[in-house]
């Protein structure tokens, strides 16, 4: 069987691509009753087998999108297909194959961690009651809550609640995991564990749709990403391509910054800024060897000259023109 590469699939826009992709939305729009446009004509394509990062400032429509994908909110216009089937119409066949953590965990405080999971599993019509206890115990072990399973969820710390929410998403083998801010409230060690878990699940073939405001997290674990701002999709594609889209910076380290800045401008370097011993600018089209030679010829003492690779954060700022502030 000839399977197109994930890049081809992500780029594809035809109906075939919709069937291949795990999530595909066309013109997905949500206008709330107050008239506020939360999501505006979203065309999102999540390729099968990807770890897909969903980025955007608070209030950019990420959570509304996730709720529409999970059939919790009816779209005002447009369509959403999850695992090739329309949502929310096919919710009963689609959702058992989807594990979800939406806007943080929600638990019954008066029930133990184990009983919380037993209840959520009982709500799944396709879950086998005979294997329920075994699966609950396995899910608790997997997120490191085995020892705290009998404790009332009310007494859990934020990190433990987050882990229990993840365990609920992992009660059964899933084809798609939708994780909204999965590392929220976790300490650095916990974050590492969750990232390792996400990689492990992805290696097993589960598609992971991960929303996060932590760019380095997306960069570390995701193969693909989409960026939202003010309800609209700004861009989507492979993480490497997105980062490459933003140009790197030429960095010259020198004890003679003023002279270096002058020479760099002469050499056609744009947007030159000097900060202490660091002079940076947009890399010129010409060979960097010539730039180096010119600096040396002008008597500039050069300690180092590199091009720093653009991070996803640079790409994000370039795309949205803003940092991670709340959208107004």
């Amino acid at each position, binding site marked *: 069987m000839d399977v197109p590469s994930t890049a081809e699939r992500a780029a594809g826009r035809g109906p075939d691509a919709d069937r291949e992709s795990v999530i595909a939305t066309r013109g997905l729009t949500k206008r709330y009753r107050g008239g506020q446009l939360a999501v505006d004509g979203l065309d999102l394509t999540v390729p099968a087998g990807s770890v897909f990062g969903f980025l955007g400032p608070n209030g950019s429509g990420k959570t509304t999108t996730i*709720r529409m994908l999970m059939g*919790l909110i009816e779209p005002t216009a447009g369509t959403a297909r999850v695992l090739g089937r329309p949502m929310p119409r096919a919710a009963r066949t689609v959702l058992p194959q989807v594990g979800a953590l939406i806007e943080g965990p929600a638990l019954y405080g008066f029930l133990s961690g184990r009983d919380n999971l037993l209840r959520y599993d009982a709500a799944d019509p396709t879950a086998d009651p005979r294997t329920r206890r075994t699966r609950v115990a396995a899910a608790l072990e997997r997120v490191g809550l085995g020892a705290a399973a009998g404790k009332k969820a009310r007494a859990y710390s934020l990190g433990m609640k987050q882990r229990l929410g993840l365990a609920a998403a992992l009660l059964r*083998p899933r084809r798609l995991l939708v994780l909204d801010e999965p590392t929220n409230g976790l300490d650095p060690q916990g974050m590492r564990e969750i990232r390792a878990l996400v990689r492990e699940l992805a290696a097993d073939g589960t598609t992971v749709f991960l929303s996060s405001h932590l760019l380095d997290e997306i960069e570390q674990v995701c193969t693909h990403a989409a960026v939202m701002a003010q309800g609209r999709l700004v861009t989507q594609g492979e993480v490497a391509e997105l980062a490459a889209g933003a140009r790197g910076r030429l960095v010259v380290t020198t004890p003679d910054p003023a002279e270096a800045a002058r020479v760099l401008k002469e050499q056609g370097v744009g947007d030159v800024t000097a900060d202490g011993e660091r002079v940076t600018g947009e890399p010129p089209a010409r060979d960097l060897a010539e730039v180096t030679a010119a600096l040396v010829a002008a008597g500039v003492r050069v300690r180092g000259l590199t091009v720093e690779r653009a991070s996803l954060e640079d790409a994000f700022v370039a795309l949205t023109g803003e940092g991670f502030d709340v959208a107004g």
Partner: protein
Amino acid sequence: MSRAETAPAPADRRPSPLWTFGLLRSELGTTLRRWRTLALLGVLAAVPVLVGIAVRIETGDGSTAGGGGEGPAFLAQITNNGLFLVFTALAATLPFFLPMAVGVVAGDAIAGEAGAGTLRYLLVAPAGRTRLLLTKYATVMAFCVLATLVVAVSALIVGALLFPLGELTTISGTRISFTEGLGRALLIALVVAASLVGVAALGLFVSTLTNSGIAAMATTVGLLITVQILDQIPQLHAIQPYLFPHYWLSFADLMRDPVYWDDLVRNLGLQALYAAVFGSAAWARFTAKDISA
């Protein structure tokens, strides 16, 4: 092969038709493990104890209780037969305590889960909106039966401990055996439980309107009090036959010999009407609602 195709397909197993009962069992267990539910049942169990002790103290000197004809039905007969405490306790709790307890549980059913955020996880499990609503309604009705039985059993125990038991006299003046009296007590408890079906449906509908469990409970109990007041205003007699508590005390007709069925049937019909109207309204609302909590 792409990776996704090698992943197991968990939806292969067809849902068992009995699954709904698994969800119902989980729902019942969850409801009964809330301290709030237990506190309500505790209050209901305490009412017959208080009535029994009060009657016992008042009649300790040989006088009859409720001599002036005041107080709940059957109060005067308790000293002769402890079984009458069951009827008295149900008559005392039906106007307010019982429907209030049902209103709290029904009002919290959907709104409480929405407020805690657990509703979204039940729905993406996916429990299914119609099934979840039906499960919630079945649970509230089970609570109606349980709450009534708690009052009745508590009253029976207190009555047996404090007063003599034996043959009893019906309202019509005929005498029936203790066993038959016990049977009628059970029947009355079931009719009282059925009388609460209307307020349960009303509470469930209110519960689909908000994301705050407290607001839904307060609204339901507020509506209950308002309707009870309207039912007492003589000028409103034209609408009173349509108010859900109007025929509540008709359960006393089961203590007639022969039983007088007219008001009992009217009561059950009215409850069924309320269940149909507000049940449909709750369904229409809940299945079309955006779950944003």
